[in-house]
């Protein structure tokens, strides 16, 4: 009866109204031999006990705020989350509401999503944004669904950069296994070539080309030439972008991208051991009818007040069923709100400061680390806040040594690229002080 507000007396009155004798009598339709199983679960804890138990579990982790100094990124980043965000997210009016199906009493959520769409479109330079996807990886997979729908299944080739996040490539493989399509281009041998080398894979059967910006190894490429080549063959191009980097870098829209997706966790969402995060999806207005996910549009109510509604719902599963553009229903509403508040409360100047700090500190770290004997940068391409460092021994050994000194090292690229087993992907954000960076350099010097 933990959260049930019905007294025994009321229960009996209600049972009488229903016309049954006991609660158990409500379940006669359930096959008798399987009815009322005895569940082997631990006995109920009170709130006080549950809080203590969960606190113990949380404390047995080593976290990057209290226990470890972190230089780990690879798709999830340690950024400062302004206090305002959680105060707003904890308002029950936001977090205990459902998807805004009844617009008259859901304008708070609807306007917040509309503003999120506007903020993301302005950030990426694209025309439109949807209300969100589960994460950056599934948003990338949905870009393929858009392209597939655009060519009505008649084009079946997907060209993927080998420097797209390995887990995103895994998700693409999962999502496309029933589609009868082929994925090409992501061989490790292409890793050191320029992005234009992917052009040789693009043919008249190619529906979409997918690249990451900055790429998984941290490199910044201008994809304009590749995008032009893709367009010449009629293929769409999806750029998977880091939103923090977009605060500084030329927009994918400026390079001609058709779809810009990515992971907006860096915008005010805790690392939370991997989720929930926030996939964003922006595109050109001409593809809006093929785009999956929820969309909020502006309108007026009967009293002439500006207001917002879910729109173009005819694309969605509850109307179109098996012909829907996607099966997505619940998405990441509350986290879209978090990202909106992040962009609002830091604002144009605060956000530029975040980007600049990431850039400056990462470059300081790269400069200092590459001075160490046996260490050097893997690439001379420009980078933003993440870079690939060649080490004198396997990255796994380097990381173990760092962990022994309280440092969470970079991402071991040997996990995904056998030829890079001596390489670490190092992320530096505004959260890393000069002292921390110096400590990293010092520990590695003594290794």
């Amino acid at each position: 009866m933990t959260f049930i507000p019905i007294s025994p007396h009321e229960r009996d009155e209600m049972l009488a109204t229903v016309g049954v004798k006991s609660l158990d009598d409500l379940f006669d339709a359930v096959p008798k031999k399987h009815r009322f199983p005895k569940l082997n679960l631990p006995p109920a804890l009170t709130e006080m006990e549950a809080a203590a138990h969960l606190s113990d579990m949380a404390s047995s982790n080593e976290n990057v705020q209290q226990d470890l100094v972190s230089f780990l990124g690879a798709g999830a980043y340690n950024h400062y989350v302004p206090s305002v965000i959680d105060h707003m997210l904890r308002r029950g009016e936001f977090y205990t509401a459902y998807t805004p199906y009844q617009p008259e009493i859901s304008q708070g959520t609807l306007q917040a999503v509309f503003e999120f769409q506007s903020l993301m479109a302005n950030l990426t330079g694209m025309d439109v944004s949807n209300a969100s996807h589960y994460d950056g990886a599934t948003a990338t997979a949905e870009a393929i669904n858009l392209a597939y729908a655009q060519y009505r299944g008649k084009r079946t080739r997907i060209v993927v950069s080998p420097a797209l996040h390995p887990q995103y490539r895994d998700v693409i493989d999962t999502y496309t296994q029933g589609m009868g399509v082929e994925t090409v281009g992501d061989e490790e041998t292409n890793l050191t070539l320029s992005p234009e080398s992917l052009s040789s894979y693009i043919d008249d059967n190619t529906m979409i080309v997918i690249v990451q910006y900055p790429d998984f190894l941290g490199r910044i490429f201008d994809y304009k030439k590749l995008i032009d080549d893709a367009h010449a063959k009629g293929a769409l191009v999806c750029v998977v972008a880091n939103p923090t980097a977009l605060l500084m870098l030329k927009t994918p829209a400026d390079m001609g991208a058709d779809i810009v997706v990515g992971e907006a966790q860096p915008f005010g969402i805790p690392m939370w051991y991997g989720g929930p995060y926030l996939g964003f999806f922006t595109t050109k207005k001409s593809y809006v009818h093929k785009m999956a996910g929820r969309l909020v549009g502006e309108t007026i109510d009967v009293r002439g007040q500006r207001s917002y509604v879910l729109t173009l719902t005819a694309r969605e599963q509850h109307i179109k069923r098996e012909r829907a553009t996607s099966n997505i229903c619940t998405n990441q509403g509350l986290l879209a709100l978090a990202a909106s508040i992040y962009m609002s409360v830091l604002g144009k100047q605060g956000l530029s400061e975040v980007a600049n700090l990431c850039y400056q500190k990462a470059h300081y770290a790269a400069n200092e680390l590459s001075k160490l004997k046996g260490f050097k940068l893997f690439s001379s391409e420009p980078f933003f806040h993440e870079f690939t460092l060649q080490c004198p021994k396997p990255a796994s050994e380097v990381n173990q040594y760092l962990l022994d000194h309280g440092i969470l090292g970079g991402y071991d690229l040997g996990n995904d690229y056998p030829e890079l087993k001596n390489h670490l992907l190092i992320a530096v954000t505004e959260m890393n002080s000069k002292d921390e960076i110096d400590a990293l350099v010092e520990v590695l010097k003594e290794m």
Partner: protein
Amino acid sequence: MATIIEPTIFELSSAGRRGVRMPASDVPVVDSLPQHLLRSELPLPEIAEVDVVRHYVNLSKLNYSVDSGFYPLGSCTMKYNPKINEDTCRYPGFLFSHPLQPIETVQGNLALMYELQEWLKEISGFAGVTLQPAAGAHGEYTGVLMMAAYHKLRGDSKRIKMLIPDAAHGTNPASVGMMGMQVVTIPSDDRGNVDLKALEAACDDTVVGMMLTNPNTLGMFDENVEKVISLIHGCGGLMYGDGANLNALLGIVRPGDLGFDVMHFNLHKTFSVPHGGGGPGCGPVGVSKTLLDFLPTPLVGILEEGNDEEAPFYGFVTPPNSIGRMKAFHGHFGGGMVRAYTYIAMHGPDGLKDIAQYAVLNANYLQAKVRGHYKIPFDRICMHEFVAEGRFEGSDVRALDVSKRLMDYGFHPPTNYFPLIVPEALMIEPTETENKDTLDKFADALIKIAEEAKTQPELLHNAPSTTKFGRMDEVKAARELVLCCWLPENVELN
């Protein structure tokens, strides 16, 4: 010109205003990137912190929520979201752990995930559980992928049809559509069960399986569920259970015991994870032994057994015929799994059974109170929800009008026009966390509205009138398609 109730964040912006500031850089300055790699402008708002706070507080006040009132949205299980969950999921050890940390540094997270997998297995009667899917529809897609992979591994390539009852959630056929399979719709009989004759006729060696919501969207427990499952298994198909309505079954019956092969859970319905105005959800999937080897990767397993002194050592494992990865990292850990874990820990076996019993009692009580005032097309003991018809003889009032009028009485409306097989459907799910007074008041409002429908239908047609906003022009929204506070240029639609 439309009246503006709350300006947009862009309209509140004024050049030069500052919100939260970042510290000065403590490292030597390096050259910036070459100009051709930089963006020319950053068109984002400039606002002071206090104005940001007021903006979002003002917006929040335009929402109806579980914390403010009764929210009987059918099939959505809008139960109370315990506040302790909001604390536990924000403990620093959870909040500040990186998904790619070495496993020896995150044993607390892994223990929680492992135990939650085990608990969900015990609650549902399944042999294995993945916590990775992000939401119910994502879990469905995971399940359908596993069903396809199972047949494929057996070389059974003829199977292309998925049987789906006409009462199913739209996500079921949409998930199947994503796989390029054919949907075969199976009608319901006059008691709200799957029509066995129609099902029997559809069962052959081209059937992938069936997706069944049980209790179904009429709120009915299928009285022939075991027969349905044996027909599907008899033709070599697999049985998918849509777990959206699991709230009615906790401690009552385990879908795995009934013979289901695969089912998704909605932790954001059954296990009190808040809905967040549209997510994030959390959609774990349970499977029988048949599909155990096909679960997505990675799962949490025990790498070294523990003993009296030491806890087990947890890590990740990959099933031999895994369909692969459904999303980056490990699923909705913080916002989903920690909250659900807290909730289950605070209930235990008896508490879980209470949830189902009282959810079903509340629904039957409401059904009994409104019977005679609204037509109830499938009128028998319901489970956690029931469906009434929002139409009245001699009146042009529709279900939508009833729903809008409920807002005037201070309630969130039920789900409208679903399931599709009931005309003018009002699908009502009170959940177990409502008291008798609330249910009485809601029933009284529904009864009053039924009278108004006959005597003063304009009250319903013009509703809501007491809310801050009236009905919206949805046609204008779709036709003009204004999707951003401003658009770069008006681009022609193709």
